[in-house]
């Protein structure tokens, strides 16, 4: 098995230490970092996504794999910053104003990082103005809004309305998620997409940004 496959396998089994070492080994062998990123790390996370969707594995395994992914990225990221290799762009995520629940939002951030996005996590209780400001300043491609309380769902609408008033060309896409939200609600508030869970959030964002 070549080193790229070993990295992918180790990532899938959540062996962070080995992924870190093998990524360095791959670089030492002269494999370019884009190949390591795409064919080992992201490929491994894609497999994890597939296994999660087919219920072969569950969230704890996904999180261990995501940690292993980051262990590999710890080696690659400084090199990516020095070279012209870029990821898939920036995603701004946060729980809307009035909501302090961040488990789902954190999972989306982890999975987006695993898929190669740069994630700007604004945390919890984030105002519409802050979402829009950071996304515009950072030239983000997508904003992910999270809410767990039914009482904070209207704040998703307010956030989208504010963003649309600032981002008049509609360059920044918005995806929403969280326990009380539904695809119908996403449509009602003019979100671009709805995600049921963190893995589907990555899928939806990938298809949204390829449109």
């Amino acid at each position, binding site marked *: 098995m070549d080193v790229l496959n070993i990295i992918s396998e180790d990532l899938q*089994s*959540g*062996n962070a230490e080995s992924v870190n070492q093998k990524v360095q080994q791959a670089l030492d062998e002269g494999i370019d970092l884009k190949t390591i990123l795409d064919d080992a790390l992201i490929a491994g996370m894609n497999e994890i996504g597939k296994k999660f969707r087919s*219920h072969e594995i*569950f*969230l*704890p*395994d996904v*999180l*261990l794999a*995501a*940690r292993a992914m*980051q*262990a590999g990225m710890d080696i690659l990221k400084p090199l990516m910053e020095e070279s012209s290799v870029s990821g898939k762009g920036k995603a701004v995520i946060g729980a809307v*104003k*009035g*909501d*302090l*629940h961040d*488990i789902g939002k*954190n*999972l989306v951030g*982890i999975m987006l990082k695993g898929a190669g996005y740069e994630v700007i996590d604004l945390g*919890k*209780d984030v105002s519409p103005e802050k979402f829009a400001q950071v996304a515009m300043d950072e030239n983000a491609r997508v904003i992910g809004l999270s809410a767990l*309380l*039914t*009482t904070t*769902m209207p704040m998703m609408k307010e956030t989208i309305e504010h963003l649309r008033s600032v981002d008049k060309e509609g360059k920044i896409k918005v995806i929403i998620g969280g*326990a*009380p939200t539904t695809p119908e609600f996403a449509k009602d508030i003019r979100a671009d997409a709805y995600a049921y869970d963190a893995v589907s959030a990555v899928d939806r964002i990938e298809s949204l940004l390829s449109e």
Partner: protein
Amino acid sequence: MIHKVTFDMDTILPEPSGVLVAMGMKTHHKVSPRVEDSLGVAFQIFSEKAEPVGIYSPISRHEFKTVFEGEGLNSDESPVRDIYLRSNALHLYALTLGKAIVTVINDLNDNDDYAVSHMLNTIASSAADKAAGEMEKIIFKTSDDRPHHDYILGYSPGYCGWDISGQKKLFEYLDPGAIEITLNSSFLMDPVKSVTGVIISGSPEIHSFIPGYPFCKLCKTKSCIPRLKGIKEQVGNR
């Protein structure tokens, strides 16, 4: 009068298998050694860092009306209103697992230890819920003057039509600052692993309602369902 309680760790710790189920794992799924190790680490951290404490105080129906009406943002219809108006006794309570546990959860996540962070978060959420259940038991035991067949259940701002802004008046009455819980401008608590609410004592029947309110459609927890089942059993046993 405000009473302070410290919760015994054994009474609030969830079952390890329950934590994994809460994280979406199927009960029959084989747990990998890495997952098992991470869960062990999460439980160890919880035992070391959680500082579960609470306060409670009796409150009259008249006083509770002011707390419940809060900032005037409740739903037009709320089962909590119907229930408290028929109660025999009311107690406000607040409890927290402390700041340290939340700090560790965030630090683990920031350091990419997602699995342990998420497991610890799940353990803490479950423990906070169990502590709220313990609070109900404590109040049940200490309320000597209640009718013997009274049934006790807790209700919290943010649920069942009681708007989250109700926290403001609840905090004014109870002062959970005494156990280092603070409220921000969005009426959310810090530390986040804290619970507040009212514990309502009355005949089992008063707690029963049909979850067909407009806000019920959006509620994903549906935690009222097992509670209502418990009430039905209680009524059946009498």
